[in-house]
């Protein structure tokens, strides 16, 4: 939650595109858990996800009376990397503040965050917008501690009691606030993807950790009040929540009613937002400087930070170094592990081939299986590329090999090498001539198509090639098959 933020309004003088309600104005507050080894203000381990509740706790993250916070410098360093990568102005001095409110997951009755003096302000991130490349301004970046986690027992309608797990309490969070520069739910999602990629390149974030990302979004239709949507915790969720909320607000306006300024919760399971009845819960957080921590001198610190290669730079390098297409470069660099996987494949001698197979084919198959790239054995995939390049496998057969390989990965079986899979299923490319009998068979059985071809209808040939491919299960090269087909048809059999 941020303190300073004006009403989301389009910049004066902007030409309204279409009717007013076509446009929507979105700004995000993104909270990401930094993947430091210990918590923000104590030495407890952050690797709590597979452990029982309240086992990664100490007096400090439990907020026991008398405990004190001590700064995890690594967390500051990580946040500064992000600030630098997002082109922000880093403050000379940043300062922690207390945000006071009661909630059972907040063991001290206040959250240590930053208020008047955040780490950084005024940066930007370029994304692919609805109308080409778009620069989204970053308002500010600050560090804060995560509260604990509540587990409600019973059903949502009849909660019986609530348990508190403080394992999460004190995990370092970075809050990144954007200006209201986003104009569609899709742009919001792209911004999130862009942030995720950047943070992963910086080595400060693990997007696969459950609950590592939480988003609050401010969304309004021009001329109407803005609504804050809280509780969004996934990339898909952002687009879903904002699309729902955009439609809801448009409907309210269409009915001649007013959009109320309020806070709404996104209910992920139902894909809707519900009113949090904000009026009566209007908070006064009574911020003041955290007296137990010293101000952080960050300007000099950030100057000494050397950033790794970031997504945009890597994209340019991939195109220059490997001669791959801009689209492939964008896809590959859009995810750190995908880019790294590709670079492992690139020495295969044919980087554009590797790019196609990693960015298009492999990505598609992974998405279908909801599988992570990290589970694919690189040596196996490189072998597959070798077989393709040596033309021992047709494209179609290679896909079949890949699928079997991935299925074995998913099933947790021993993964066979592409050569083994090829062997077992006799998927290896066979010289086209070996299929001459099949070609003849097809010509014999598809009299209509043959007549059409001879009558000059060229497309009939495609049908015949398809029939042969089907019967040879893709083991032959389609070009070669076409040649044999033409020869056989010319020979005038049947």
């Amino acid at each position: 939650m941020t303190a300073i933020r004006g009403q989301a309004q389009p910049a004066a003088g902007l030409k309204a595109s279409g009717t007013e309600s076509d446009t929507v104005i979105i700004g995000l507050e993104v909270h990401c858990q930094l993947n430091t080894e210990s918590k923000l203000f104590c030495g407890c381990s952050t690797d709590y996800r597979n452990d029982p509740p309240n086992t990664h706790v100490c007096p400090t993250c439990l907020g026991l009376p008398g405990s004190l916070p001590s700064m995890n410098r690594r967390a500051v360093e990580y946040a500064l990397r992000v600030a630098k990568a997002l082109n922000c102005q880093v403050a000379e001095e940043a300062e922690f503040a207390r945000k006071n409110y009661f909630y059972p997951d907040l063991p001290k009755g206040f959250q240590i965050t930053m208020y008047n003096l955040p780490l950084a302000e005024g940066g930007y991130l370029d994304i692919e917008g609805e109308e080409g490349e778009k620069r989204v301004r970053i308002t500010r970046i600050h560090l804060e501690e995560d509260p604990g986690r509540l587990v409600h027992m019973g059903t949502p309608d009849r909660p019986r009691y609530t348990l508190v797990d403080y394992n999460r309490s004190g995990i370092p969070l970075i809050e990144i606030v954007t200006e209201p520069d986003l104009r569609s739910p899709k742009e919001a999602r792209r911004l999130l993807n862009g942030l995720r990629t950047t943070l992963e390149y910086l080595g400060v974030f693990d997007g696969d950790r459950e609950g590592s990302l939480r988003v609050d979004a401010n969304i309004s239709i021009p001329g109407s009040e803005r609504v804050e949507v809280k509780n969004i915790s996934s990339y898909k969720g952002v687009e879903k929540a904002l699309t729902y909320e955009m439609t809801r607000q448009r409907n309210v306006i269409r009915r001649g009613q007013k959009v109320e300024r309020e806070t709404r919760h996104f209910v992920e399971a139902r894909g809707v937002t519900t009113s949090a009845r904000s009026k009566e819960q209007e908070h006064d957080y009574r911020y003041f400087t955290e007296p137990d921590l010293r101000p952080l001198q960050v300007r000099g610190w950030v100057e000494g930070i050397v950033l790794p290669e970031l997504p945009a730079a890597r994209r340019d390098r991939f195109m220059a170094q490997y001669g791959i297409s801009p689209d492939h470069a964008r896809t590959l660099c859009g995810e750190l592990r995908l880019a790294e996987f590709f670079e492992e494949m690139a020495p295969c001698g044919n980087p554009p081939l590797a790019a196609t197979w990693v960015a298009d084919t492999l990505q598609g198959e992974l998405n279908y299986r909801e599988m992570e790239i990290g589970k694919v054995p690189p040596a196996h995939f490189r072998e597959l590329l070798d077989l393709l390049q040596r033309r021992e496998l047709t494209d179609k057969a290679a896909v079949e090999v890949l699928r079997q390989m991935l299925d074995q990965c998913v099933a947790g079986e021993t993964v066979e090498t592409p050569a083994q899979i090829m062997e077992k299923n006799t998927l290896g490319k066979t010289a086209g001539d070996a299929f001459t009998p099949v070609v003849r068979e097809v010509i014999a059985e598809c009299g209509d198509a043959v007549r059409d071809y001879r009558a000059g209808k060229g497309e009939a040939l495609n049908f015949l090639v398809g029939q042969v491919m089907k019967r040879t299960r893709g083991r032959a090269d389609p070009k070669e098959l076409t040649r044999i087909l033409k020869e056989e048809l010319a020979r005038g059999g049947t």
Partner: protein
Amino acid sequence: MARGETAGDPLNAFITLAEIPPRGPGRLSGITVAVKDNISTRGVETTCGSRILSGYVPPYDAHVVDLIRNEGALIPGKTNMDEFGMGSSTENSGFGPARNPRDPERVTGGSSGGSAAAVASGMARMALGSDTGGSIRCPAAFCGIVGLKPTYGRVSRYGLVAYANSLEQIGPMAANVSDCSLLMEVISRYDPRDSTMKDRPYLPRLNGDIKGMRIGIPAEFFGKGVDPAVTDRVRKAIGVLEGLGAVSVECAMPSMEYALAAYYVTCTSEASSNLARFDGVRYGPSPDIRKPWHEAFQEMRMQHFGPEVRRRILIGTFALSAGYYGKYYGKAQVARQHVREDYARLFRDVDLLAGPTMPTVAWKIGAKSDPLSMYLADILTVPANLAGVPAVSVPCGSVEGLPVGLQLTGRPFEDEQVMNAAFAYEQAVKA
């Protein structure tokens, strides 16, 4: 109510009597050191004098507790105090008032009144107190012992249940300057867990030589509200220092006018935040879990916080509220800066400042019924906390049988010099 009275503790100096054994032989071997009940002791109830923490047993030792136990100290128990340190008489304890060993009908001063009473009565040779706005020096003065509020950042606060973090320090109390100095030496060891601490351990230098030392006498310390009999005792004490070769210099501290207000706004603001954690979820008596959270928290806090604590939480919450922050908290910080600058200016010219610790001697239990007159009693002690400078109270005679304290204040991190001047005075009057 007063737990101690039934356990051979007629002064109600202790909330909990518990023999916490030493961990090793050292400079405090064979010495009993009583510990104020807002300093965490592993396995021994730590209540801060509040009912809201009854039953709370910390799972860890405060840094200072570690240090004294490692040096061989035996802790005879946890001493009585004003609830969370909020008071100047130890009457605001949730466990009954402590009584002054010189006159059991009178207050010990506070908030570290139990520690002072334990030392003055001989129940413990030394004690740890904490000083947010005079809470070590006031009871030291009222009970006739020595108490030092160290420079801010010289003693780790890790394990001290916070009342007003930016003002308070743990400090030593003892019957004489040497003991007080020894305890200070032990507890000033660096602790990285307190980010506001500096690694500048106290190295005692008690040689009694104050020849040529320049001592400032701020007029404001002898002004309205200060009992002339107390003034008289303190002036005589300054005369003794002059007799030892010190030079006294009349001076002024104009920021004193705002010091008390700045102090109360700052400490109540910080307290309102610090005390938010006492919601019954983790310690103390349980709230009624059938009620909605906020209702349950509210009810539980209403019942178990004492009236002075509730008053200060309300004042502090108000002072930090949107729309009032600039008017109160913001202004208090400006005034605080003026106090710091006043000290810095004075300390360019003088080495120490001298004056009374308290404007009066110990009053009768129950005599100060309105909170404001109690707050006014802190006027001479709060400036040192606002500026973070070291200040000691050393006994300088009595008025009608009740002890008077001489307060000596020094430059930041010159606790050694402050203690040496106190030592010089003590040795001179003893002789």
